[in-house]
């Protein structure tokens, strides 16, 4: 365990963007709150408060979440390749740390540690923003941001996303570290080419779409698997603010579907595929010391 904490710490030393990028986003959003327009709407009912407050807080989180996913993807693709590229793999291997621990620590960093950094950064900058807006705004808008129940719901949503996405997308993450452990150059290209080639070959020679369907189901299947049926109208609430009609979830709790997620065979099948890729990455890390 001690080794793992040092391994993760080393990833933070090496990839300073892990905390610099969310810090920059947080600073930009805080500046926007300081100097931007804050009197957005005059809110007259608790219902309107809830909807507008929730949307603003959610949008803040989304900004972090989108960037985080792009960065994590790049990180997983680069992490093992970088060690071979700068030849430091020989230094790391001169220490009593197994290659399994190294690969797992990098996966943990990409799937859990980096998302948590963004999660904390999002919380800090959202608090700052809410504070600044409540001081600056003359309208009722500032008050709409201070709703403990909304905060709690969003915290739960982000943590649920982090955990379930790490599990659901493990085949993709495993594939990325496998490519990272294998490729001699152009990791980006190698991450895309084999699945693309498989898809095309399958289409030309057999006229089937197994690869394409599997990839599409995995890429798009997350929301239907991890969340309740989002077309169920009873879970949504429609509110009118000024002349806009806005539809939002009545409550986050009604949308999350952990039971459905963990009882879905596709979740576990994906986990198995992910583990196979990860085992492959470990074997490659064991054997490859050069580009």
């Amino acid at each position, binding site marked *: 365990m*001690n*080794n793992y*904490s*040092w*391994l993760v*710490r*080393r990833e933070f*030393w*090496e990839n*300073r963007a892990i905390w610099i990028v969310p810090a920059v986003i947080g600073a930009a959003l805080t500046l926007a709150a300081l100097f931007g327009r804050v009197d957005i709407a005059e809110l007259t009912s608790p219902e309107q408060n809830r909807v507008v407050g929730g949307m603003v807080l959610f949008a803040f989180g989304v900004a972090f979440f989108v960037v985080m996913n792009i960065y994590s993807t790049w990180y997983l693709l680069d992490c093992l390749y970088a*060690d071979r590229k*700068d*030849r*430091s*793999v*020989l*230094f790391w*291997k*001169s*220490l*009593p*740390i*197994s*290659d399994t*621990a190294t690969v797992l620590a990098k996966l943990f960093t990409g799937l859990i540690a980096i998302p948590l950094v963004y999660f904390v950064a999002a919380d800090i900058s959202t608090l700052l923003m809410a504070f600044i807006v409540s001081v600056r705004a003359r309208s009722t808008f500032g008050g709409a941001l201070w709703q403990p129940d909304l905060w709690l719901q969003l915290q739960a949503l982000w943590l649920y996303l982090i955990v379930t996405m790490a599990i659901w997308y493990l085949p993709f993450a495993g594939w990325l570290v496998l490519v990272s452990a294998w490729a001699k150059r152009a990791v980006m290209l190698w991450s895309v080419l084999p699945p693309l080639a498989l898809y095309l070959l399958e289409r030309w020679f057999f006229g089937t779409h197994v690869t394409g369907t599997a990839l599409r189901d995995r890429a798009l299947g997350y929301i239907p698997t991890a969340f309740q049926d989002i077309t169920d109208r009873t879970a949504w609430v429609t509110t009118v603010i000024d002349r806009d009609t806005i539809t939002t979830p009545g409550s986050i709790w009604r949308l999350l579907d952990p039971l459905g997620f963990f009882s879905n065979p596709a979740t576990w099948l994906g986990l198995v595929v992910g583990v196979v890729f990860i085992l492959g990455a470990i074997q490659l890390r*064991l*054997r490859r*010391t050069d580009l």
Partner: protein
Amino acid sequence: MPALIEARDLTKKYGKHTALDHANFAVETGRIVGLIGPNGAGKTSALRAILGLTSYEGQLKVLDREPFTHRAALMNDACFIADVAVLPAWLRVDQAIDFVAGVHPRFRRDRAHALLAKTQITGKRRMRELSKGMKTQVHLALTMAIDAKLLVLDEPTLGLDILARRSFYDALVNDYMDETRTILITTHQVEEVENLLTDVIFIDRGRIVLDCSLEDIATRYAAVAVTEDRVATARAEKPFYERRTLGKTVLYFEKPDVDKLRDLGDLSTPSVSDLFVAKLSAGAA
């Protein structure tokens, strides 16, 4: 007591190329062994196999472990410096010390600090800001601060100036080396290390050409420098290699009849570098 490193029929192939071809050798505790061979002889392959960095065929035991399957455990007792500067560019000196101290049970932080105090290098410097020689010094300080049973050095002084080289080898022999430690070292600067080695292993084209201690060299090998008129007589004693120098011919003998040779000319024990040239040239002929 079993040997610290024991290789039997150690073979490493890269596709059709055979880097190590049924190599047999052993390294005993407390020795300073030079693994010496020309470029492409299989030195690096041998070291990588010993350090668990590559798979191999044949038998290999290092500190009673199979290196490839137990590299992490082996690195508790063994440490190495590879042939090129491999400390990552982003790493700061103090981070390097913290990290190794964190993961290595035998790392002695005070010793690393003491070694670095002798240099111009400060803790906040990143590797990318250091010269090649300074990077090597950091790496050496990190490695020599580990109480390891086996230290493997692959061209350790590459990029160091002559002063730094000399002080490195002095530190290695005087401060680091004791009877519990073993050092395996490769270098193409044979002259630089031959005074500190206790054993040599010559390797050529994947095969072990010689594996013996320096004391054994004195009893097993002899060189005789003879004048032209005695060359024919000397050749009758079956030298394995001969070389012409200033007006004389030096003939090299294995298991020599010392009494006969003494009468022919100047008898001496060949230096490691001379023996290396003799052995390899003879093998190539």
